[in-house]
């Protein structure tokens, strides 16, 4: 097996952006805090320290206040699956710690309130916020071709990694269970828009690296996942499909007449039998598309170069993928009901419906749906299920805790993390983005890191030496 001439292949840079929903419940009747107000409390210590609500953290990630007052974490550049899971989960801890601090600050100002951060994608009236996946792909692969091959997978991927939700009545649909949260929120296959007309794949061309070699494929359609195995299946399956496309493995041709037209129907059919209309005529079901791609991925495991995410780990991905599709085909979900978010949540809701009645519009069910995504240990329902051993893990608390403090050692994020940590220790003023590291004083020193795969760079060593040489001129923290 010879790898094609591509700067990225089995070892691929991947990162995940999570926008968190934010609210507060006041213990004082009549007192209400808006998301804007809560977000200000949340970011107060960040703004106090950095004069900005948009920073890079010592673990190489970006923490910021996004459009619509959503706290957002963009993970550091990762080059393997469990690594990006650890940084995604580390992001939860980072914002949860901000929320705990905000509760103290609110109390000091006379507001006795609980701050909630929801790792989900829809509020109670249907406003949506995203979980975006970024995959670095080679520049030589035309995006339209990539999209054409990828869209049938992306449209049906919700079957294996949706977060599940109770859909409200609307658009000709009755209220009921949906496999995924974002499926009603995307309106185009591939485009450059983000908020007004959300596409499945966004083409905004910001590679955050050498634009001659790299393209950053930005996937907008996915749900935020709570269950670690579901996150691993979402990212892992997508990595495998990208590898197969780049390697020129003949994926089954499922080019769809109108990919986006089927999203909402697929989300509402837990049997996967939604008929998709093929461009060349004929139909295929959503489940059949997934089964064919999963079969191709199973064969690919024996051929792929064992780089980036270890092939052994991807075997676990394909094992879960296979079991989930089998569960959908047989409607026996017991083999995946500790691993797949939408299955876990639907079980929980069904148990409540046994107790409360079948009606999907019961507000208690909506509360269960929402609280599943509350990231606070000891309060959120997913954290409760995990703490009680009712859901399976893919990583460990120790590895997540390490990811809170340290950047990935295998990518450019390692350089950024080292730089930030060093500068913070000296109290040196710096400016950082995904590509640039800059010392502001006494003389501006700028390093551009155009290769996200490079974790070692002598210019950064020089930058740290410069900081040390001027240590006496910075205010120590």
């Amino acid at each position, binding site marked *: 097996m010879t790898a094609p001439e591509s700067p990225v292949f089995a070892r691929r840079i991947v990162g995940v952006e999570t926008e968190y929903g934010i609210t507060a419940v006041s213990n004082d009747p009549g007192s209400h805090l808006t998301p804007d107000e809560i977000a200000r409390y949340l970011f107060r*210590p960040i703004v106090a320290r950095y004069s900005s609500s948009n920073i890079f953290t*010592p673990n190489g990630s970006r923490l910021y206040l996004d*459009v619509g*007052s959503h706290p957002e974490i963009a993970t550091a550049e990762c080059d393997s699956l469990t690594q990006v899971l650890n940084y995604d989960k580390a992001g939860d801890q980072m914002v949860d710690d901000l929320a705990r601090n905000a509760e103290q600050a609110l109390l000091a100002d006379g507001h006795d309130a609980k701050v909630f951060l929801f790792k989900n994608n829809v*509020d109670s009236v249907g406003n949506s916020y995203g979980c975006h996946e970024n995959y670095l792909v080679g520049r030589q692969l035309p995006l339209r071709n990539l999209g054409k091959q990828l869209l049938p997978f992306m449209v049906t991927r919700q079957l294996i990694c949706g977060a599940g939700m109770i859909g409200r009545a609307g658009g000709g649909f009755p209220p009921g269970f949906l496999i995924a949260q974002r499926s009603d929120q995307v309106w185009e296959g591939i485009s450059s828009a983000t908020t007004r007309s959300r596409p499945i794949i966004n083409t905004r061309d910001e590679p955050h690296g050498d634009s001659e070699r790299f393209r950053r494929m930005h996937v907008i359609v996915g749900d935020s996942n709570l269950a670690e195995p579901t996150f691993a299946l979402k990212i892992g399956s997508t990595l495998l499909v990208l590898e197969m496309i780049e390697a020129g493995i003949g994926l089954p041709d499922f080019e769809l007449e109108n990919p986006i037209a089927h999203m909402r129907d697929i989300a509402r059919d837990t049997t996967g039998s939604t008929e998709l209309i093929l461009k060349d005529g004929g139909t295929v079901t959503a489940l059949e598309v997934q089964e064919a791609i999963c079969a191709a991925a199973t064969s690919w495991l024996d051929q792929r170069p064992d780089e980036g995410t270890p092939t052994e780990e991807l075997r676990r991905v394909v094992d879960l993928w296979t079991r989930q599709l089998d569960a959908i085909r047989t409607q026996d979900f017991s083999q995946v009901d*500790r691993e797949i978010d939408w299955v876990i949540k639907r079980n929980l809701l069904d148990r409540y419906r046994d107790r409360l009645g079948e009606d999907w519009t019961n507000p208690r069910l909506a*509360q269960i749906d929402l609280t599943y995504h509350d990231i606070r240990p000891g309060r959120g329902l997913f954290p*409760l*299920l995990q703490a009680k051993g009712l859901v399976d893990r893919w990583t460990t608390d120790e590895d997540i805790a390490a990811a809170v403090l340290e950047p990935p050692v295998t990518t450019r994020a390692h350089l950024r993390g080292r730089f930030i940590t060093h500068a913070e220790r000296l109290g040196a003023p710096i400016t950082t983005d995904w590509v640039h590291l800059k010392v502001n004083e006494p003389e501006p020193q700028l390093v551009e890191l155009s290769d996200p795969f490079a974790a070692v760079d002598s210019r950064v060593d020089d930058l740290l030496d410069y900081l040390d040489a001027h240590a006496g001129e910075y205010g120590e923290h």
Partner: protein
Amino acid sequence: MTGPQTQVSAGGGDDHSDDQAAAAGQAQLNTTGTDDLLDEIDGLLETNAEEFVRSYVQKGGQ
């Protein structure tokens, strides 16, 4: 002044979770003991479900 390093290491909720996980074993959500689980969840939820849900309104994001 609190920096991110201090904040991010201050959570500490997971040690507790670990203990619970070790004690609970490999139970399943759709089998025995679920009624106890639902009772426990009821104890965690805000009492006014309708108000809790209705007040959760965000501005849209991306």
